[in-house]
């Protein structure tokens, strides 16, 4: 476990990078140096006021002392975050949770599959691999063009999809993944990592299982504490694992095969 810090991080910038999607850059040397890909921070969006709980966000990128958070404005907490200005302080706890398994056999191709905001934690993973001269394949889906914020990657293979066809392939990110496997004809080694809405994750799990590819998922749950104290963020696991894991502490990264929800393959409502 990495050391956990409670910090008043300096806001370096906070810009809208796509529709309602912001990139918050925070100066926090301790968390930046301690973090591992897949971990998150927990931010108090209105110190002393409401909302009562901190809000969790994946670390999307590190550059020197600065960590980047990419977030979508969906409610009170994220609205308050959008009002942060350079020079403000942000009350954060981190780095939290476990991390992706990044040690892969040489020749293995990392597949990074993200839906919507679910792409944020995969960016840092992409950076990790690219830094080690491993070229990942990135699958990124969104509802529509305006919500895509990761448009171009000269150092990796990038497959964009939109539900409405306004950018990249029309369709779901899982269609794109399926097609990729058909083309790849099965004689390569892959390691898959995914993050996004759970119906999508279930489908990704089903596709990966069919092709015998190990898959790690980054899971989101509402969190009261984020540090394993409240037991609120339980997620059901399959036997022989213990019945419930804590997303904040045992996760947020899980092997797809241990989780109960990915067992319902073929759920069609993504």
């Amino acid at each position, binding site marked *: 476990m990495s*050391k*956990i*810090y*409670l910090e008043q991080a300096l806001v370096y910038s906070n810009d809208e990078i796509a529709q309602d999607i912001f990139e918050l850059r925070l100066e926090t040397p301790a968390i930046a140096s301690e973090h591992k890909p897949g971990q998150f921070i927990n931010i*108090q969006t209105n110190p002393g006021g*409401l*909302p*009562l*709980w*901190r809000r969790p966000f994946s670390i999307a990128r590190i550059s020197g002392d600065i960590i980047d958070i990419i977030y979508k404005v969906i409610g009170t907490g994220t609205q308050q975050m959008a009002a942060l200005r350079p020079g403000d302080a942000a009350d954060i*706890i981190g780095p939290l949770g476990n991390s992706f398994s990044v040690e892969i056999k040489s020749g293995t191709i990392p597949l990074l599959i993200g839906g919507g905001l679910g792409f944020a934690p995969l960016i840092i993973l992409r950076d990790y691999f690219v830094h080690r001269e491993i070229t990942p394949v990135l699958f990124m889906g969104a509802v529509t063009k305006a919500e895509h914020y990761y448009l171009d990657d000269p150092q990796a293979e990038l497959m964009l999809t939109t539900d409405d066809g306004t950018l990249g392939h029309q369709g779901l990110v899982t269609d794109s993944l399926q097609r990729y496997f058909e083309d790849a004809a099965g004689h390569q080694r892959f390691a898959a990592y995914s993050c996004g809405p759970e119906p999508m994750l279930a489908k990704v799990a089903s596709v990966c299982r069919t092709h015998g590819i190990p898959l790690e998922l980054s899971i989101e*749950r*509402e969190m*009261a*504490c*984020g*540090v*394993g*104290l*409240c*037991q*609120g*963020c*339980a*997620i*059901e696991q399959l036997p022989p694992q*213990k*019945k*419930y894991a804590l997303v904040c502490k045992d996760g947020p990264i899980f092997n797809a095969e241990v989780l109960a929800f990915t067992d319902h393959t073929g759920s069609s409502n993504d």
Partner: protein
Amino acid sequence: MIDIRTEIGSLALNNPILTASGTFGYGDDLPDYVDIKDFGGIVTKSLTRQPRDGNAPPRIVETASGMLNSIGLANIGVEAFIRDKLPIIREKETVIIVNIAGSRLEEYCEILELLDGEAGIDAYEINVSCPNVKQGGMEFGVSCPHLKRLIKALRKLTERPIITKLSPNVTSIEEMAQAAVDAGSDMLSLVNTLVGAAIDIENRRPILSTIFGGLSGPAITPVALAQIFKVYESVNVPIIGIGGIGSAEDVIAFLMAGASAVQIGTMNYRDPGIGLKLMPRIEAWLGEHSIERITDIVGAAHA
């Protein structure tokens, strides 16, 4: 120099701020920036005889200035606690209060007997009021005869202080308090959570898997203060105040209402370092008001 030490019955505390059960784990596995010494004492998660997985998710909901939980007493069980946790926490320089919960009287007794053989436990807190476990336990918190029977049975088994943790979900908190004290409870802690629910309107069902959960946080502070105020006037044992405490002013208000010490629960989540922050502010307030001992303000709001 302001004296911030306090006593609850035979327990001497370095300061009056304790952690509330279920909000600090077992005290062994805390974020690095938390120093257990900042608290006057810690109360463990409720222990049951056997380990419990807890309830199905969703288990928590954020509400207006509060939260609902139905964790369902997820815990490692008393034996694992004795084996894995107690050896670690008994070394820490703070008061250790072990909270126990059961669904039958015999279960409470078994747990307490197992614990009573172990060194390093300063007191027991008896959870008779967990509103979100299906298999009972709740009747002890809402019925005077049941509560009396339970506390009497436990009283026979130990010399250590017994703290009965009262449920606020009753018509008369004074009657419950009296029953616990008559049965031999050395102290009382109140309040546990209020019964509450929340609705997932998109899916047309209760949010919590158990429908009902326990409401905690600043939302319930006025209810807690009222019940503490009443209990202070009706029984004569130390009270540990609980309910949404998050500021120095809150702690002072609870002490003035009649609590000798307090527990912090929900507000620990936002700020597990809260113990460190509040005591200096309380000391400063006492200093500004020329109050030399924190114990001087206990019950001060009573005419």
